[in-house]
């Protein structure tokens, strides 16, 4: 199989214009003859559903939440990037593009990223018009801040709730379309299989989580906007219910999974305190603007009260290693450095897996009131969780899994290798390369949903023609439904001795230890033995109480964990095959003497897209070369 990226030819800056011109269009009168299924209502799913509905298509939107307003996009605190250059500080579409490509360690598609930077400006306009209460200056104009290591102020924000506010904007647009009848909303419905008819995605099988009813839905195209798979690690900053099931089941139907090993580990999370822990909480990266990160120079000091450790006995390791970026070094670098110092035994806190984020200097410089004004809510969250007062004692932070750059492979039109299957937002692999910059996830989700997909999906729809979708009586729907019922029954029948969560925890532990911030061949190979064994035990020994015909949260989780047990293996396999370090993927064998990541552009300047071959068979690794026409690949240095 050849992966066709379908990037338009011509100068970078004109590709998107050209693509829109070359795309086939669907006549307005024909639009209502097309039905589109959108799974997920996060930023990408909600904005896509609303926009498609507004254009005149008939849309069915499915979410497993109780409302299309709850997806984990809400949790993004920091902000959203856009190349508005409202601050007149030298920003431009090109700079945002370049920063994103560089931040992604030259493992993203140039054309996609450039398009993302181009439409970023429209996103802000759209959201402001929807009533998103962005922060403003006294003059009434939009405020910006610098975020996630960017050297320009291009981040728009709404207090500490940017993700929530942007999602509510998209949700409100969706509400309008639901009210007008163009979008049908199915809440508490989980997609459990993708239906392919003659190789095209033509429907889904969903389970009503309240009644257990399994139903078939057909459409002309299927859009997956179901988020990332970071919960494969169990402990992460993801919502508890975030899962990979939708994209994984699409993968098992033939959609290629690209770069699964690209996982982002966020440097500023609250450390783990005990094995009961269900979730890690992120503290906004903006804290790094004023907080200084350090650990004791000597192991012996780790047990001491931080305020008793004198200045000269502290190692401000980020400032030491990266003098120009200091505490604002990109996420992967900060995370890895934290791991390094903890591995050296200099970590702090009960578990020894933590570093200090200290505001004493800022409080001295700005006064406590100013610090409170800037970060008060974050300090409150920290206090709520840890019962510690960060105004007096430094915060303790540690990296945690936060985002997955990998996802289903898509072409420039956001269509996967399965015709008719589109993938948006974090669920696809497209824009962030090997590492995502802060405040770019919101941008990508909304870009895909509002501006890209609505312009590209017509290309496919026009090619198949209106009114051609097969009905749900088609054999393929029956087969998919039987598959879903089979999985459910197998899970309920197992009646073993271990809970679903215990498997999830064990899987997470295996991955974190063997395929976390630092990866090496030995560990990965070990994980590739441990995971299949765990999976085997899961199917023999899992205990899923309850019934299938009503709300059964254990059953829901069991299905998701069953998929994670497969995702995890692919993740390790991809990490093993990618024998280079890039962005969030750090192979310990591939580093410079000073510990910096060593990319291998000669052998790995490509997207690795895995194709499922059937149960217990090794998937095939396809390669899409990354061609850089505009920028030169350089070593990413933040020194």
């Amino acid at each position, binding site marked *: 199989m050849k992966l066709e990226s379908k990037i338009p030819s011509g100068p970078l800056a004109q590709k998107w214009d050209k693509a829109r011109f070359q795309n086939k269009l669907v006549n307005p009168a024909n639009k209502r003859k097309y039905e589109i299924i959108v799974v997920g209502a996060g930023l990408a799913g909600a904005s896509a559903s609303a926009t498609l509905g507004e254009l005149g298509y008939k849309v069915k939107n499915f979410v497993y*939440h109780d409302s299309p307003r*709850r997806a984990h996009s809400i949790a993004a605190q920091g902000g959203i990037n856009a190349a508005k250059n409202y601050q007149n500080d030298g920003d431009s579409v090109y700079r945002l593009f370049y920063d994103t490509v560089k931040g992604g360690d030259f493992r993203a598609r140039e054309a996609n990223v450039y398009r993302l930077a181009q439409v970023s400006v*429209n996103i802000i306009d759209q959201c402001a018009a929807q009533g998103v*209460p962005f922060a403003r200056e006294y003059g009434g104009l939009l405020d910006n801040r610098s975020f996630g290591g960017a050297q320009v102020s291009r981040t728009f924000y709404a207090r500490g709730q940017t993700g929530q506010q942007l999602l509510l904007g998209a949700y*409100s647009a969706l509400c309008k379309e639901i009210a007008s009848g163009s979008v049908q909303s199915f*809440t508490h419905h989980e997609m459990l299989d993708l239906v392919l008819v003659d190789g095209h995605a033509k429907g889904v099988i969903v389970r009503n989580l309240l009644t257990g009813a399994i139903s078939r839905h057909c459409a002309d195209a299927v859009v997956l906007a179901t988020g990332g798979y970071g919960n494969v690690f169990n402990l992460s900053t993801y919502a508890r219910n975030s899962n990979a099931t939708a994209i994984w089941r699409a993968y098992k139907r033939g959609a290629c999974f690209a770069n699964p090993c690209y996982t982002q580990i966020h440097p500023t999370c609250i450390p783990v305190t005990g094995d009961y822990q*269900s979730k890690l909480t992120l503290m906004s990266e903006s804290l790094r603007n004023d907080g200084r990160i350090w650990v004791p120079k000597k192991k012996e000091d780790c047990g001491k009260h931080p305020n008793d450790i004198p200045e000269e006995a502290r190692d401000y390791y980020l400032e030491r290693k990266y003098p120009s970026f200091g505490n604002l070094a990109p996420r992967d670098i900060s995370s890895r450095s934290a791991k390094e110092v903890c591995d050296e035994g200099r970590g702090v806190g009960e578990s020894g897996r933590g570093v200090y984020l200290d505001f004493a200097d800022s409080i001295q410089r700005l006064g406590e009131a100013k610090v409170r004004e800037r970060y008060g809510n974050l300090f409150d969250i920290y206090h709520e969780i840890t*019962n510690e007062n960060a105004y007096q004692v430094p915060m303790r932070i540690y990296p945690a899994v936060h985002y997955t750059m990998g996802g289903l492979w898509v072409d420039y039109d956001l269509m996967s290798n399965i015709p008719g299957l589109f993938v948006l937002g974090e669920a696809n692999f497209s824009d962030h390369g090997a590492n995502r910059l802060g405040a770019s996830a919101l941008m990508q989700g909304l870009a895909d949903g509002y501006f890209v997909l609505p312009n590209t999906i017509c290309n496919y729809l026009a090619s198949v023609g209106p009114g051609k979708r097969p009905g749900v009586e088609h054999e393929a729907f029956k087969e998919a439904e039987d598959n879903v019922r089979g999985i459910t029954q197998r899970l309920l029948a197992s009646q073993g001795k271990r809970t679903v969560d215990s498997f999830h925890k064990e899987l997470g532990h295996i991955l974190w230890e063997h395929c976390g911030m630092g990866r090496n061949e030995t560990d990965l190979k070990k994980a590739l033995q441990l995971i299949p064994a765990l999976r085997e035990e899961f199917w023999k020994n899992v*205990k899923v109480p309850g019934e299938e015909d009503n709300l059964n949260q254990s059953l829901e989780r069991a299905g998701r964990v069953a998929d994670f047990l497969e995702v995890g293996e692919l993740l390790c396999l991809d990490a093993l095959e990618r024998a280079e370090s890039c962005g969030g993927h750090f192979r310990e064998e591939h580093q410079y003497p000073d510990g910096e990541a060593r990319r291998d552009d000669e052998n790995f300047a490509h997207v690795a897209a895995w194709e499922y071959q059937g149960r217990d068979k090794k998937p095939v690794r396809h390669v899409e070369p990354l061609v850089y026409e505009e920028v030169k690949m350089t070593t990413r240095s933040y020194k």
Partner: protein
Amino acid sequence: MKVKLKVWRQKDTRSAGEFRLYETPDLNVNMSFLEMLDVVNEQLTLKGEEPIAFDHDCREGICGTCSLVINGKPHGPHRGVATCQTYMRSFQDGDIIIVEPWRARPFPVVKDLVVTRQALDKIMQAGGYISVRTGAAPDANSIPISKENADLAMDAAACIGCGACVAACKNASAMLFTAAKVSQLGLLPQGQPERYRRVKRMVEAMDEAGFGACTVTGSCEAVCPKNISLDFIARLNRDYLVASLKGGAKHG
């Protein structure tokens, strides 16, 4: 520490429910309340009983999925905090904690502690939006908004749609929820064209869904995990009055 839980168990919407008493194993005081329920559920599962169904998702106080009335108060003992951000250190060793679902006619119990809150979506669908076609928006800085209004709009927009206001209200009124959205959009220049139409429709949808009236007891404000102010309800009342007096060509 150990606590006893008196938990509402209900098989489905039609079945009658009852309280059941559970004892927790030894807990860490730094556990969140939901993590404590996870632990209890693990135990129940291993004993072959069905675990307690409860709603949750982000576990960082922002998605609005978690609910639970803990000892008579929605979202537990603290002000401005959601259930998922409530920690066991807020309780004493040996406490008996009563855990119930949201109670309101528009929020039928689905199972145990899980209710459906689609009625809130219905209110939003009635008018909780600004009609703006994707791509048709003017430059974001072409309409300045005073910082005061933007901040106030943000205060209102902070609502996470959890429904605690309804659960706490003796009348199961959704006024705080509705008013927060009406106020957010009504405070912004972008929201002006639909301002009065919006408030009328949303109030009607709210009544239709079967929520009660506001009798200004202030329970909603006191339990709101985002501290949304009763001031916004006054704003809704004002806008609704003006809207009704103005009338309108269509839709009343």
